[in-house]
């Protein structure tokens, strides 16, 4: 069981560069989420999706973009990376309301 797979695990970006964080799930879940985790700050929701072709902003969407062309994949795009985007990024998915969310292993991103 692969569950939720995130790539890459680690990345160092220079200020102004762009990159895409990949997230794939094999559980046929409709709902997918991107969170960032800063030390001592918990998990902040960046974007979420309730199905293919449907995405919406979370608490901290500025500087990020997402797309959901298939049920399985939910990539997160960083345009013009800034030091404030240094964080650990987690992708999660779940089947529906009142159900468990499954998390990936995370991507540790450093912007220098």
């Amino acid at each position, binding site marked *: 069981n692969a569950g939720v797979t995130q790539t890459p695990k680690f990345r160092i970006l220079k200020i102004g560069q762009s990159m895409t964080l990949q997230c794939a799930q094999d559980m046929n879940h409709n709902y997918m989420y991107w969170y960032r985790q800063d030390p*001592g700050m*918990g*998990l902040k*929701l960046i974007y*979420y999706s309730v199905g293919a072709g449907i995405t919406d902003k979370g608490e901290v969407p500025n500087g990020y973009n997402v797309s959901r062309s298939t049920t399985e994949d939910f990539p997160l795009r960083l345009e013009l990376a800034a030091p404030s985007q240094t964080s650990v990024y987690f992708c999660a998915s*779940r089947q529906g*309301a009142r159900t*468990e*969310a499954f*998390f990936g292993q995370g991507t540790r991103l450093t912007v220098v």
Partner: protein
Amino acid sequence: QQQVKQSPQSLIVQKGGISIINCAYENTAFDYFPWYQQFPGKGPALLIAIRPDVSEKKEGRFTISFNKSAKQFSLHIMDSQPGDSATYFCAASRGASGTYKYIFGTGTRLKVLA
């Protein structure tokens, strides 16, 4: 209105003791309250969850107490073990509106001393 406030930020407990972590929410539309456990370098994993129509749920050494009128819920870890040392997050979710967003607390770093 969307916040979930969690306390304490950190907690040190002796082996065999009881660990208690508290959360409070504001939005009465929340209808699912999970607790997640996270070990260093790993993603959070579901520990136990409760719905607002019950006041308590117990799974092994872990118990959620839920107070709907006070808009508070807590995690109790009985007979705490060094292996329980991790960061714990409470969360709340609102499913009725169709958004199914999870809102997380800020986390509690638990250390259980051997």
